[in-house]
Structures are given as C-alpha cells and as structure tokens.
C-alpha cells in the first residue's frame, strides 16, 4: 500500500528536455480550443494518474509526458480528489482496485465535482460486467492491463478530444439562445405590447414574410429575432442588414455576394447575406430606404427563390424567411413612386406594428427596472431602486427615441448614481427642467377627432397657464364654447 502524493509538477525541467528532444511541434488547433488553452496559461492538457502501484505510476508518467501532457501522479485516490478541488484537470486515469477508494467510487465523485472531466479506468482483472458498469457510471474507457504505450496515448487523445468537443458544444449552446431555452424577451404588460407578443406567437411558425413597422428605437429588430427564434428556422442563422446605411452597389454586394473578379478588387468569391442566411431568417432593416433598382432585385429573389451573385451566371437557390422593417410610411412612399407596390405586397404578408414608448407609458417602470438590473450587472454597482420622483419624471417624458432612449437614460443614471437609489439628479438635466411636446403624425396616433380635440385643448390650456381667455383666443373659439368643451371633456 502506498500513501501520499508521489509527485506533481516537479518534472517541469524534464518536460522541457523532452520537448527539446522532440524538436519544435506545431499543433493545429481550432480557435476555441486555442483560446481556452491560452486562458489557462499552458499549452498541454493536465492529466491526473491514480494508482497504488508506484511502478505503474512511473511508467504512465513516462508515456504521457512523451505526448507533452502535464502529469500529476497520486498513489492515494483521496489525495487526488482533494487536489482536484484546487487544480485544473482534463483527464483522470485511475486503477480500478485501490485502497481507501476504488476506481468506480473515484469516478462517481469526480463526475459530481466536474462532469466535464473524462475518466479512463485501468484494471488487471478485466471483466465484461465491470466494463459495462464503468461505462454506465460515465467512464470514457475501461482498459485492461497489460496495454501498449501507443494504445494508452491513442485513448488519451480521444478522451481529450471528446472533452473539448463537449466544452465547445456547451459554449455554442450558451451563444445560441434557442438551444439554451431562452428567447429574445419583449418587456411589457401594456395592451399594445401584449398584442404584439400575441401576433409574434401566431405568425412565427407560419414561415410567411413579415413587415415590422414602427419608429426608431421601438424594438423592431428585437421583434424580428423573437419571430425567428419561435419559428422552425430557429436552428438556422439570423442575419440582420440595414438597407439605409449603404449605397446601391454596396447593398447588392452585401446581399447577393460576388464572384471572383466580378469587379476591380474582388480578389475572391464572397458569399452574400442571403446565402449566409440560407435555411434561416434575413432581417432587412430600413427597407423603405432601399433604392428602387435594388427593390426589383429583391422582389425577384422573393418570387423565384433564387438569386445570382454579382458577376455570377449560375442561379443559387434559396430557402430564407424575409422579415423587413421600416420607420417610414410605405404606403405614402408607394404613392410617391419611391417604393414598389409589388414588393410591398410581397413583404407585407403579415404586418407587426411596434408601439411607441409614449403609447405604452405603463411599461416604463417595468422597462426601467429591467434595464437597471442589466446595467448593474455590467457596471458592478449596488443600486437597489429608482426613486418615485425619478420614475414619475420618466413616465411623463415623451421619449422621441423610444425604448432605446430610455435604455440610454438608465445607463447614464447608473453610471452617475452615487448612492443606492437613482434620483432625479441622476437623470439628464433636460428631463427635469424642460417640457417636451410632440406633434405626432395623425395616421400613426390613430386618435379620433374628439380625442385629438381633447388633447389639443389640454395642451393649449397648459401652455396658456390655465388662462381661458387666452386659450380661447389661441383655439379660435369663444370663451363659452371653450367652457362647454372643458366641461364635456372633464378638463377642469
């Protein structure tokens, strides 16, 4: 029986000698693996070898160090477990029969501590039952003695590769909200936003093209992402493109890609966004700003479900869902001839209208607290609340920049806040000292004539400081009519 740690990192110089003997080695590793290993600050995997036989430990160390691994050997499995809590380990090679703790029990405890560590069991008394049992418990392999160094090294490489694959897959799952079980969240309880959520839930599985309309900052891209992640294309890519930010040539190049030598400087073939988004969703933001010539090409893509790269002759077939968004009135653009009617009808299969933040003021506290929590995590601050005055100020503000503006206001407030409550003084000064009035487009406000009249009289009374004579003069009606309207609309 052997007790205590036999050796750990005492062989660093020996390892260097081995490396020198083997000469320069270049390992081709995927980027994620390389990054992770650089993070750990070393270039090899760390392997724990546990065996009560000192000679076996020595032999395994020699075999593994040849493959440039860092090896720690333990003759006592309990010591190995204790060390595991302090040090990083990629793989454990353990004997099955040992004093204090057998190989299977060690395997179970290791999997409890860190399920990503692979375990290879070795035994001099191999049996089918034992092998089945070990594999059921999560062992990577059940190896019988005697074994050749090459067999052991091949197994170790396989085990380490599997571990990396598992870690990469976990990292990808974190990046992909669908596989992690989370969707883009639309925050709000107001009837208008509940309607939007309901519409998204209904249209997402249909696969139809969608047109999202709404002012800048209302969350059009968020809605598009929500549609994508709730559709059967969720596993496919979501590619967003802003049509307003590029010239016509650049839009064509970005959307369709180009063939090699298609134009000066096209030194290689480039895939367009449509190609990249194949089997997924393309989100075309600011579609109203797309040049008319590009609209014709896009219409053709939607109709034919195929396209040509710039300079290409071979049509490429396509399976994408197109979600377009605009802050403009496309019907007016059609009347003016700057937006094609046929494209409008192709895109506007389903229309989702994102409400302005001023139309869902009751969501402001909810959104403010959601954003507060988001920025607290990022800025590492200890803010617990938003004062009632600050919240009231936010609720009474017009928010021309919509949710994006609220987000920026909260970010700024978190950055400047000194205590544990956001106060009025932490908000931008113009919010507290300036009054904003917004003259909205009548078509988007969807107010009745009575509502509009009521709103306007209230505004005039406000700016005239409640002076009815002056208000009546501004409104172009006599005092009695104004008095009657005040009474009718209960504007006292």
């Amino acid at each position, binding site marked *: 029986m052997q007790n205590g740690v036999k050796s750990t990192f005492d062989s660093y110089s020996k390892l260097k000698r081995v490396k020198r003997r083997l000469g320069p080695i270049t390992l081709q590793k995927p980027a994620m693996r390389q990054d992770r290993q650089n993070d750990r600050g070393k270039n090899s995997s760390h392997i724990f070898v546990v065996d009560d036989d000192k000679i076996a430990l020595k032999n395994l160390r020699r075999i593994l160090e040849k493959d440039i691994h860092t090896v720690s050997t333990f003759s006592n499995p309990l010591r190995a477990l204790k060390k595991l809590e302090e040090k990083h380990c990629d793989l454990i090679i353990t004997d099955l029969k040992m004093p204090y703790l057998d190989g299977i029990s060690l395997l179970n405890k290791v999997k409890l501590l860190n399920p990503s560590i692979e375990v290879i069991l070795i035994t001099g008394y191999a049996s089918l039952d034992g092998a089945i049992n070990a594999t059921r418990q999560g062992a990577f392999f059940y190896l019988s003695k005697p074994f050749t160094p090459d067999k052991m090294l091949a197994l170790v490489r396989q085990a380490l590769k599997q571990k990396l694959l598992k870690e990469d897959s976990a990292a990808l799952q974190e990046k992909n909200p669908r596989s992690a079980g989370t969707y883009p969240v639309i925050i709000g309880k107001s009837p208008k936003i509940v309607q939007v959520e309901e519409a998204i839930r209904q249209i997402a599985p249909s696969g139809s093209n969608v047109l999202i309309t709404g002012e800048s900052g209302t969350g059009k891209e968020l809605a598009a992402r929500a549609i994508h992640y709730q559709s059967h294309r969720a596993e496919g890519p979501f590619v967003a493109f802003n049509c307003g930010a590029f010239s016509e040539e650049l839009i064509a190049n970005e959307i369709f890609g180009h063939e090699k030598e298609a134009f000066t400087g096209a030194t290689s073939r480039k895939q367009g966004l449509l190609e990249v988004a194949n089997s997924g969703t393309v989100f075309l933001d600011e579609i109203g700003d797309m040049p008319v010539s590009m609209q014709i090409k896009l219409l053709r893509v939607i109709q034919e479900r195929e396209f040509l790269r710039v300079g290409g002759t071979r049509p490429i077939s396509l399976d994408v869902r197109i979600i377009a968004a605009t802050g403009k009135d496309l019907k007016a653009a059609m009347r003016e001839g700057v937006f094609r009617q046929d494209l409008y009808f192709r895109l506007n299969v389903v229309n989702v209208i994102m409400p302005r933040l001023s139309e869902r003021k009751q969501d402001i506290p909810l959104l403010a607290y959601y954003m507060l929590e988001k920025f607290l995590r990022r800025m590492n601050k200890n803010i617990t609340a938003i004062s009632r005055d600050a919240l009231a100020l936010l609720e009474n503000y017009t928010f021309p*920049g919509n949710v994006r503006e609220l987000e920026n206001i909260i970010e700024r407030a978190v950055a400047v806040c000194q205590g544990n409550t956001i106060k009025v003084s932490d908000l931008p000064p*113009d919010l507290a000292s300036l009054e904003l009035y917004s003259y*909205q487009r009548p078509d988007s406000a969807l107010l009745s004539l009575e509502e509009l009249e009521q709103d306007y009289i209230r505004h005039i009374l406000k700016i005239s400081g409640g002076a009815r004579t002056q208000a009546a003069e501004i409104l172009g009606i006599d005092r009695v009519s104004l008095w009657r309207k005040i009474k009718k609309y209960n504007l006292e």
Partner: protein
Amino acid sequence: MFQRILVVFENEKVCNDSLTYTRELALRMDSDITLLMLVEMAFMDRSYIGSKRSAITHIEEQMRKLLSKITGRFLKEGIVISTALRIGHPAEEFLKFLAEKPPFQALIWGSSANLPEIGRFPQNHWIRKVAGNLECPLLTVSSKEQLESPQE
C-alpha cells in the same frame, strides 16, 4: 438606428431651450445633428433672382455667422453637426429639404418654445400646417418654470 436629428429655425430666431434639449438628446442617443435655417422670401420669377441677389448674399453672410456660433456649442461636446440654409417659401423649402436628405429620426422646432402663431389664427403659420404630416414627430421644447407660471 437613431442617427439624425434635425433642428428647424425660422428667420434667425433661436430658442435656447431647444438647443439645450437637442444637445442632451444627441449625446444620449449618439446622434448627428443638422441645423436648418429657413428664411422667408418671395420669388415671383424663380428663374431670375435679380434685385434680390444682394439681399440673399447679406442673409447668407448673417446666417453663416449665426449658425457657426450655434455649432460651436455642439462641437465642444464632440457632436457631429452640419448646417443648411434655405431661402424661399419656408413650408416648401422644409418639405423639399426632408425629401432630399436621408430620413431624420427626430425633428425639433428651434425657433420658439411652442409653435408660432399668427394673430387669432394659429393654424395659419406654415409649420402648424405641416407639423402633423412629417416623417417623424415634431418636438417643441420649453422650460417648465415658464409653463408653470400663470400668464394671465
């Protein structure tokens, strides 16, 4: 993207509160600002400027000074700002300017706290006629103290 704010002025009149709000909004939204000065002038014959040439030169010189004074306040904050001057019928020039330029995400009236009025008929002012039909809401800015004090 919330990128462009247009501040509209009329006939040299500049409201300080509007400029303060525009600066704050631009900083908050990381936006560019365009200042548009509209000067009213009637041209009977559009193809021939004639006697108005010297008046226009004078206006241009005066507006250049005024606009460069205003832009200084924004440039100090690192805000990207551009200016434009249009002379003619204000409503027409304003709508033409909006049609020519890429869309703005906010329009701010920069000449007074509230939209201007003409005598007993406030709706007769050109900005009131177009205010409800623009590509995005037109905002007016005034100080709260000014509003809270009764005017009668």
